[in-house]
Each structure stands twice: as C-alpha cells, then as structure tokens.
C-alpha cells in the first residue's frame, strides 16, 4: 500500500466513524446503561414537575433523543374544547416534553394530530398550538390526505394496511402523549387508542372490529416513548366530555417505552378491569408489549 492509498483509506474510515450513527445499532445498550425501569408512574405534582422527575428516572430524554434527530410528538388534540375539560392532552406537559427534546439536542420537534373536530379550532382552543410554538416546536396539520401514505400492517389481523401521516414514517423519534379518558366504544383511551390520530381513515377501524384494529396498528408502529397524561382525567361521557363535571383531578403520569404496559397501568389507575378493555389484551397476544404489570420493573414515585 503506498502512502496515498493509506491516507485515503484512513480518511474514509475515520470519517465513517465520525459521521455514522451507531446508536441505532445498539439501542438496548444505550438505554440499559442508565435505567432499569420498564415503567415509571408518578403522582401528586404539576404536569411539568412530574415529567421532569419521571424522565430523569429513565435516564433523561437524552436516552431517547439523540443530537440532530427529528422528533414527532403525538398528543391528543381531538376536540375543540378548553383544556379544563380534559379531552385533549395537557398543553403544559406537551411544552415540557418539547423542551426536554431540544435540551437533548433534537433538531426539529413536530406536533400534530388528526383531529375529530375542526382541526384549526382544536389546535387553538386546546392551547396546544400556542404551547408548541412558545416551546419552539413546529405544529403541523393532520387534516390533509396528501400527508398520509399507504403502509402495510403485516402482523395485523383485521387491519392489514393503513394511510399513515408522513411525520410518523419519517421522524427518528416518535413520542406518544395520550391523555387518559373514558371512551364510549374503546372503554378507555390511552396510548394505543391515541394512535388512531396518526392514520387517515378511522372509519375503517370502527367498521372492522375497533379493538382488534387498535391492537393491529400497534404492531406496525411502537412509539419510542409513551407519556400518559393523567393529571385531569375524564371519568365519564368520553372521549369528548360534556362539562367539567366529568373531570377528576388525579395529578398522575405514566411513562413507558412499552405501550401495552402503559395502557394497562393507565387502566388500573382509571379503575377499569383489564378484561373490559379488549384491545389491551389483543395487543398483549400480538406481543406488542406486556400487560402483566407484575412482571415489570416499575418505579413508583409519589411527590
């Protein structure tokens, strides 16, 4: 090998080491180094304070968001109602998560939902649009079919394909931020049910066994992090709610990388028997995650 070839090869190798992104190859290594918890449950504080504590016990946001990554956050912004009615995710929590993402070095943080009510009004009146903008994030429309792209749901039993928002498909990190609520058809809505807001055609799910479709879609895309907002919890008349009389101040939060575990814990917190929420059981059968909380390493924090 002459000198020139040696220098070339050396440059190539060193640049490959410098520029390559190897965190994806060793994700377990990265997270297992700093945290042993499968799930963190916390209560008794304000949304921001609870999140700060809970994410710290999982090794901090830097465990999930690497430098220059593109992050998408999917809160529930489904309804044109005020934050007090607890139909949408707490805007303060969303803002705090965005801040943690940027602190961890995220390049862009996008937030969207495919809303049920008119999306502009939902974004405004939920307080989430303002919270996102103030925190430096980018709020994106979920109300245009052109943003959704056809994907196969290979492990799905009833749902075998779906049109999914491009931010979910293109982002490096996907953070799911549902609010825990009562739900007419789904019994409760938490993490997996919240993913209905990343697809275009929801009617198909309702037509073809809602619970199975919810579990099926979770096989396609598991969020990197699930943060369940249970600060204000709508105990009845969900998911839209009629008045503030439906809302209980529970001051709780659940965080997990396992969406099934997060939903199962949320169900217990809500006070509903797991057997009464079919999609959690279906998802467990499909090995999306684990519903048996006894087998998980849970960090319980009471502030």
């Amino acid at each position, binding site marked *: 090998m002459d000198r020139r070839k040696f220098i070339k090869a050396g440059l190539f190798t060193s640049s490959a080491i410098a520029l390559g992104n190897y965190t994806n190859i060793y994700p377990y290594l990265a997270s297992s180094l700093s945290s042993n918890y499968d799930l963190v449950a916390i209560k008794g504080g304000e949304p921001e304070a609870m999140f700060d504590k809970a994410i710290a016990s999982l090794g901090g946001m830097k465990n999930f968001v690497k430098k220059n990554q593109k992050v998408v956050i999917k809160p529930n912004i489904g309804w044109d109602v005020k934050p007090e009615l607890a139909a949408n995710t707490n805007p303060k929590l969303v803002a705090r998560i965005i801040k943690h993402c940027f602190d961890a070095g995220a390049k862009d943080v996008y937030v969207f939902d495919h809303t049920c009510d008119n999306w*502009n009004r939902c974004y405004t009146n939920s307080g989430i649009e303002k919270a996102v903008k103030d925190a430096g994030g980018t709020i994106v429309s979920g109300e245009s079919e052109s943003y959704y792209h056809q994907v196969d749901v290979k492990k799905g039993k009833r749902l075998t394909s779906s049109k999914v928002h491009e931010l979910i498909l293109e982002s490096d990190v996907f953070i799911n931020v549902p609010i825990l609520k009562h739900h*007419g058809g789904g019994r409760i809505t938490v993490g997996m049910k919240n993913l209905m807001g990343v697809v275009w055609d929801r009617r198909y799910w309702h037509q073809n066994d809602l619970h199975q479709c919810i579990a099926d879609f979770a096989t396609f895309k598991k969020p990197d992090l699930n943060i369940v907002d249970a600060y204000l919890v709508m105990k009845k008349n969900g998911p839209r709610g009629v008045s503030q009389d439906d809302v209980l101040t529970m001051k709780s939060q659940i965080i997990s990388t396992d969406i099934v575990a997060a939903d199962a814990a949320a169900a217990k917190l809500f006070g509903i028997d797991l057997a009464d929420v079919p999609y959690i059981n279906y998802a467990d059968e499909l090995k999306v995650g684990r519903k048996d909380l006894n087998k998980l390493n849970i960090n319980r924090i009471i502030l």
Partner: protein
Amino acid sequence: MNVTVLKKLRVALSLLFFLLTLSLFLDYRNILPPSIYSKILFLQFIPSFIKFISVIGIGAAGFIVILLLTLFSGRVYCSSICPLGTFQDIVSFLERKLKKKKGKKEFLQYEKEKNWWRYSFLALAVIPFLGGTILFINLLDPYSSFGKISSHLFRPLLIAFNNSIAFLFEKMNLYIIYPFEYKGVEVFSFSLALVIFLVIVYLSFTKGRLYCNMVCPVGTLLGFVSKFAFVKIAVDERNCKSCGICERVCKSSCIDTKTKTVDFDRCVACFNCFDVCPSDGMKFEYGFLSSFKKNQQNIEETKVSEQEEKVSHSKRNFLFNTFVYAVGLTGITLSQVKITPKTKSKVAVFRKNPVTPPGSQSRNNFAQNCTACHLCVSVCPTQVLQPAYLEYGLLGMFQPRMDFQTGFCNFECKLCGDVCPTSAISPISLETKKLKQLGKAKFVRDNCIVNTENTDCGACSEHCPTKAVNMVPYKNKLVIPEVKEEFCIGCGACEFACPTKPYKAIYVEGNPKHLTAKINKEKKLEQKVDYKEEFPF
C-alpha cells in the same frame, strides 16, 4: 370642481368594495373577524332589502341608503358597490388592454335601451317573490351571483394555488403553509356559477355593462329611481362638438352624441365621459325632475312600484304558503334524499326533512330569506354547509343545507349566523346555539355495526357533544348507542362519524321548525383523591 377626480374616486371606491367583498368569500382560513362581515355587506341591496322586510332595524337599512343615494346622484350602487358590476369593469379593462396589444380598434357605441328584456327580468324576480318564491332573486341578484362565482370558482382556484404551494413546501420538509382539504363540489351550484361567470364575461367583453341594463333586476329598479335623481349627468349642448369620444367609452352605451342626450336611467355613474371629453361637453343637471318635465304621470308609477316592494310580511307568508302547497301537491318540493349509495347496510334510510343551519329558525324562514350567496358555505369551517340540489325542492335549489356527508356542525361555532347578510340565518349567541335543536338523531339498530358485526364501535357517541347519543350495555359485553332525543341538537356529528355503508345507522331528521334541547345535566364527580395513596398496581 375638477370632474376628472370623480372617475378616479369611483375606481378607487369600487376596487375597495370589490376587494373587501371578495376577501370575505376567499377567506378559507377564517382569518377575518366575524363582525366585519355585516359592515362590509351593509349596502348590498337585495340582502339588505330581504333582511329589512323580516327584521326591521338600522342594521338592515342599507338598501334605503342606496335608494336615497340613487335618488340623489344615480346608480352609485352599480358603479362602485355592486361587486358584480366592478367585476364586469375589470373584465372590460382587461379586454381593452388585450385589444390595444392586438392593435384592434373596437369601441362601444350608443345602443337603444332594451326595455323588454329589463322589465321581463325585473318581473321574473319580483312577481314570484311576492308569491313567496325567492328562487329567481337568487338567480338574478348581482351580489348573490358574485357570491356564487366567488365561492365556486375563485375560492377553489385560490385553494388549489395554496395547496400546490403547500405541496412544494412539504417536499422541503416545511410545514408553514398547509393544504386545505376541500370537500364539497356541488355540481349544480358549480355549473350555475360557471354559467353566470361565462355570461358576465361574454357580455362585459363585448358590450360593457349590458348585463346591468338588460338582466339585472337591481339595475333596472335603481335605473327607474335614478330617473328622478337630483344630480344627473347630461351633455352640455353648447360645448359638445359631437366628436363621439364619450360614446365610445360609455359602459352603459347610454350617451347618444347625435341627439346630445344621456339616458341617465341606464347610466352607471362611471364618469368615463367626463374623463375623456376634450371640450367640457359633459355637465351635471340638478333637480329631481330635470329630465322629466314633459310627462308628469310617470311619477305615479314609481310610487306604485315602491309600494309593491314594501309588501308586508304576513301577506307574503300567506302567499308563500299557498304557493308552496300548490307546488307541493305536484310533488316537486318533497324530493327525498338517500344518504349514501353503495352496498352493505340493509335498511334504506330517508330523511324526510332537510336540516337547516342554526339561527335559521325554521325551514320556512330560511327558504324565504336566503338569497343563496353562499357566503356561509364559504366561511363554514367544517364545510357542513353545502348548497342544496333538490333537498329543499325545486324552489329551494342552491340554498345551503347541512350536509352530514361532508362534515358536521362544530359545537363551538356560530359563524354562519354572524356572516349572513340577509335574515336567513340570524346571529345567535353561542349559548343559544348550543341548545338550538336543528333536528333529532334517529338510530337504526339494524344498520349498526355493533348489531350486525358483533364488534364495538361507538363512533357516533364519541363525536356527540351533548351525549344525547350514549353507549349502553348490549350482549357479549358490547355497548350499543342509545339516543335521548331531548338532548340532541341535530349537529350531525353522529351521522358524519357513523362508518356504515351505504346507509347510516344513525342520522339526523330535520326539525322544520327549530326547537330548544334540554341541558344534559349530570351529577358532578366527587373530587376525592388521595395523592399520597399507593398506585393500584
């Protein structure tokens, strides 16, 4: 006074009114504050007149202002306020530019008045209206025609432009401009708008403002009034050299240089003649009867015609009802609407009564007062308001209806009532609106997924803002919808969300007369939470 200023003033004023009015229809992002609508549209003649005869008040006096203005200085409405008039001027302007480029020299010239046409169209608008049918006014009112053109041609064009920009931005991963999901293309309203557009463009391309002096009933009516205008434009016979330049620029073709006369009835006060006259040959004449000294008896006629316009409401109601029943017997008004057209759900569902927007009070009130300008269709954020085809019958064609295929009425919104320039949709408070029952939800169990597929669904109940649709226990641990009609406001969220095809398992049956729903008041949750208690897992 330097009279050439008048033309500049007219151009500025007309562009101002035109752009303001157009922006109301193009505001697909709902940026403009709702309160601005009534201010901008205050002077629109027909909407204001329609509003006046049902709710007499200062807010509805715009047409009186126009009548007085016409009585003072002629058809200022036509020259500056009417958006369709200015639209024609814009077309003529472009046409002149185009001809100049090609070097062609074709000018306008004096033409005889087309009284047969004019009065036939006026009669077509007025006589059925006295009989209670607003359809022909809807077809002929220049403001409403402009509204239809803006809603169905200009607005989609702007949205298409927006969406192509958004598409380009999206490719660069920028989400600053987002696409607008345009849902409703109502073929008949689109076609009507296109026909009106083509007629207007053709006429203004070749004949200036012929539309205003041949078809437009407002033009004809105001023309009649302007015969008595205090200030009139006339030819100054001493200064006029009969060069004919004014005749060539006269949009209404109403200056005859041979006889040195101006047919002020048709003049749309554009002041082009003053602007071009090289010899000070145009002048103002003062006095209400200045051009009328010969035949006095015409005045009597006007009085009669004004009386005709101020017909009382109750008489109109009576006439309307008789007319509707007469036509109704022939079956035209009772067309029934199928909800969706494919296969699967078995029970065919027909709506007996279409659903009218909140604030419209009743189907009758709406039918009588809506001039189908489609402003509400343009501003409706959920696009649930769509022009009717035959849902209201033949006579209610193009009047907007609640179309629960394209959307549902947003619980927190009352924009349609805020913007409506007539009294078809009255402005109501949000509290009132939230209890205004436009119709009642009807559940068709045999079409429901829960019943036919034995799986959970709940889409209807999920969307219901008052929980008039509630999920109750059903077999195999399933839950099925139950409707409590007294809480239902007929917003159509349940019908929109219902996934069954072709027939919906839940739909809204319209209330011919809007009612008030009960408040769904439940027990408040006990706020007893022990934040120190251990987690239940």
